[in-house]
């Protein structure tokens, strides 16, 4: 398979949650593609559906959630149409996922080594001895010192950063084609965060895997991503390559996010940090029309009445807005 082949093609994915208090359209028509070896940053505030989208790809959505529409084409086949058996084979071996909280995401009663070996033995035809060797190699690869000793330790005996490294080791153990990182660095200290990011960048190049990098922190994606998709209330509002998004944001939301990031290089230290007013609407009380309109400084009548479709404004730069920002921004 060549380098520029499309690995994942998500088309109009819809995942709804049917709760007692109403239907929550957590993911409402999301589309994006990831090529082999590429990094896509999925950005948005908490609750905007990015995690749900990634779990949908892995088909890990449970009641009351349900994937109600769309396609997830992975290596040419629609994952949503596969049987449970087939999906299980893909999980962990071709698509792997790491989560936000390493302490709770690792089983406290089994050793790190045990849990990593489990993944290896499940998907690969190795003996226990070989699996153990491979695990120790992996622990080394992710930068855990004294891997033989750590192999027999329990999660609570490791620090937060090391746990996350162990999680990463577990995820890449079967050389997946796609790694989904769901806010994997959010719960860590800033310095550790930087280390983990470095590690991920490193591994990504070494193994050549694609990464779906989910975060609410713009600064992180700037470092890693080839492309960026900005989400708001379950829909993608801006989608382009990273450089374009940062230098030339077209959606008012993206624009607002970028403006609100304090920059150490900012000359105008006396200027107030502009924040986007208002709050993300409750999923049970979505505003009519464009979901961002109540908070948007550029909103007009049509914005409050109708939901804009996503359009290719410039080459490869998609925006969902009736009044895309015309100004170009010199950022970062």
């Amino acid at each position, binding site marked *: 398979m060549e380098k520029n082949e499309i690995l994942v093609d998500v088309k109009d994915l819809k995942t709804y949650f049917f709760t007692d208090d109403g239907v929550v359209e957590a993911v409402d028509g999301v589309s994006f593609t990831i090529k082999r070896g590429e990094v896509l940053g999925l950005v948005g505030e908490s609750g905007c559906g990015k995690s749900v989208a990634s779990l949908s790809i*892995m088909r890990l959505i449970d009641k009351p959630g349900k994937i109600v529409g769309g396609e997830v084409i992975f290596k040419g086949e629609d994952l949503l149409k596969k049987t449970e058996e087939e999906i299980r084979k893909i*999980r962990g071996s071709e698509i792997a996922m790491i989560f936000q909280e390493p302490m709770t*995401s690792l*089983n*406290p*009663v*089994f050793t790190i080594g045990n849990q990593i070996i489990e993944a290896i033995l*499940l998907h690969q035809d190795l003996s226990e001895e070989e699996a153990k060797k491979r695990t120790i190699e992996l622990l080394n690869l992710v930068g855990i010192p004294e891997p033989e000793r750590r192999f027999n330790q329990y999660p609570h*005996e490791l620090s937060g950063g090391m746990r996350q490294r162990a999680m990463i080791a577990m995820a890449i153990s079967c050389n997946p084609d796609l790694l989904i990182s769901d806010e994997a660095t959010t719960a860590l200290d800033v310095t550790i965060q930087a280390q983990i990011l470095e590690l991920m960048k490193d591994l990504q190049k070494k193994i050549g895997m694609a990464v779906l990098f989910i975060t609410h922190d713009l600064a992180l994606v700037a470092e890693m991503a080839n492309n960026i998709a900005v989400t708001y209330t379950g829909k993608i509002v801006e989608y382009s390559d990273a450089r374009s998004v940062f230098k030339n944001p077209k959606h008012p939301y993206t624009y607002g996010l970028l403006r609100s990031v304090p920059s150490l290089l900012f000359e105008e230290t006396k200027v107030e940090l502009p924040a986007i007013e208002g709050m993300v609407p409750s999923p049970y009380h979505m505003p009519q029309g464009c979901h961002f309109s109540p908070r948007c400084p550029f909103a007009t009548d049509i914005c409050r009445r109708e939901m804009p479709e996503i359009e290719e404004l410039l080459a490869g730069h998609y925006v969902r807005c009736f009044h895309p920002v015309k100004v170009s921004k010199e950022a970062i």
Partner: protein
Amino acid sequence: MRTYLTRRVLQMIPLFIGVALVTFLILSLVGDPFAQMLVNPRIRPADVARLKHQWGFDLPIYLRFFKWFWSMLTGNWGLSIFAGGRPVIELVSHAIGWTLKFSIGAFILGFVVAIPIGIYSALRQYTIFDYIFTGFSFFGMSMPTFWFGFILLMIFGLRLHWLPIGGVMTPGMESAPFFLRLLDQAKYFILPVVVLSFFGMGSWMRYTRSSMLEVVHQDYLRTARAKGLPERTVIVKHALRNALIPIITLLGLALPGLISGAMITETVFAIPGMGRLTLNAMMNNDFPLAMACLLILSYLLIIGNLVADLLYAVVDPRIRYS
């Protein structure tokens, strides 16, 4: 692990002493036990005098406890007042066998029934199965054991004549071959064991269900699924193992209930166990017997808790390595 073990065992010692102290203090409110003994024609005054000395009752009060405690530790438990001067240790050793037999039986029955149902209820939350068994467990938890015993006795003993209404053996069976004796005893044991385990079943079912529910929503199960593990493995290997931890603590806490419950069940079903012995002791103001009974029951409890704590450490690595 070894440090944990030693620590726990050492902690038991002050507990043993403390319990003995409390028992001693409570029962010393009763008055002079030796006067009672002297009144009983079957007890020789010489024995009473010797006992008085061995227990330190001829000494001032603050020294009494230690001498008495030492006597208890060395097995010198005195003479029973109401049982015609027989040594207390003899009475207790006969009784304790019965109590242990059917307490353990009740424990196993409760365990075997409640835990699987509790787990299954958690996995099938909000189904009919779940509702029925939740109702059943409330029923079990609210049921006064002795009343339940009556009801069963009435139905199975009096109306249907399937099972005997009390006692532990059909007269004449003492000399029968082992297997027949066992079968005979089983008849007598069914009802008391069921009754004793009933309350436990109710609360254990509930508790298992809720701890399993807690585990089922944990993140590490999501990780396990993301690795591609089949659902069965996720539940049995990852979830259950964690749910086991609170269940084991629960079993440790179940002991006091069993011992208290045994007292009642033994009375209803006329079983000559420790519970009934304690009752008789209290009713007759039999100080030596009562002291011994209370002490033994308490010590059983303490040891049981220790075992539970050790099991807990075995199951939860966070306890072992912290």
